[in-house]
């Protein structure tokens, strides 16, 4: 298998999380202080890089079958979480994530907080807001980078995919100086959920001792199968009574919807 699916999956997953992190960083920087915000972001990126540098090579020491069994199970569970959430949001059973309202909420909280200086950080609130936002959103990316990279024995390609996504989102955010509310986050999460679930299922079953018909080519059937069934569930759920939010097509998410606390 080529590195392209690996890079693309990591790129899209990382872009989604980077958009959410950007919202928090912008809220901290524009409403509080840029210096402390950048300090918090930098420390979080160093921590995330350290996790990749330490865990990435360590996990490759495991035998491939054990690695695929464990990582496949985790990826499948993780991917199903993304897919479940994306389908519920696409069908209006869960409110869509809205960067514009998330930004306003963060700004309101940031403006209300007092300014406290701690050691080399002049605004502790801006520092911790930025640090936590980047670290928590980044951990999901790190998980995907390590699991995909190690399974494909190509951690470098996964890191490149993540780095390009961060660079693209950061550049767009700097140019726009506003949260990227028009990014179709739900459609991207839906796509990543399909990829994580498919690859997790493929590797998990291999790790359990299964030989796939057609070897790696089985993924060419597995990914569309997961996508088709997921789209089928989406179509079915659109016909059921809804409780929260209004539905958005899987391929397109409106700019402003109701806010939700989770990512």
């Amino acid at each position, binding site marked *: 298998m080529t590195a392209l699916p690996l890079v693309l999956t990591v790129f899209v997953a990382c872009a989604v999380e980077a958009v959410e992190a950007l919202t928090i960083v912008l809220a901290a920087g524009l409403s509080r202080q840029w210096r402390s915000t950048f300090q918090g972001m930098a420390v979080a990126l160093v921590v995330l890089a350290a996790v990749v540098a330490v865990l990435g090579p360590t996990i490759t020491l495991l035998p491939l079958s054990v690695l695929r069994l464990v990582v496949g199970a985790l990826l499948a569970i993780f991917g199903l979480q993304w897919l*479940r959430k994306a389908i519920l949001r696409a069908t209006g059973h869960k409110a869509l994530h809205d960067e514009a309202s998330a930004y306003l909420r963060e700004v309101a909280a940031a403006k209300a907080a007092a300014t406290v200086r701690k050691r080399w950080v002049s605004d502790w609130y801006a520092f911790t807001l930025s640090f936590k936002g980047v670290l928590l959103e980044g951990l999901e990316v790190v998980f995907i980078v390590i699991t995909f990279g190690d399974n494909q024995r190509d951690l470098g390609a996964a890191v490149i995919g993540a780095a390009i996504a961060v660079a693209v989102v950061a550049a767009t955010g700097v140019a726009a100086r506003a949260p990227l509310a028009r990014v179709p986050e739900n459609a991207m999460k839906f796509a990543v959920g399909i990829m994580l*679930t498919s690859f997790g299922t493929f590797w998990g079953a291999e790790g359990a001792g299964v*030989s796939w018909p057609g070897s790696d080519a089985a993924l060419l059937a597995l990914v569309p199968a997961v996508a088709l069934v997921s789209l089928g569930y989406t179509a079915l759920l659109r016909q059921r009574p809804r409780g929260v939010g209004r539905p958005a097509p899987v391929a397109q998410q409106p700019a402003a919807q109701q806010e939700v606390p989770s990512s």
Partner: protein
Amino acid sequence: MRRLRSIGAFAYDFVIGDDWRVAAVVVAALALTAVLAHVAGVNAWWLLPACVLAALGWSLRRATAGPRT
């Protein structure tokens, strides 16, 4: 102690998420696949995809059937 508990809660939410039954189905399906492959000699490549997709449908049904999401 409180910090340990919050780390545990974060890890649970990070890996397991909103519906633990999905994780349980995936683990059980993998265990059954391994048993079939290594003990019974059955190449049950179809079992995990079927269980994964069924678990997703079950979880979605539960999430939309009642007040819980």
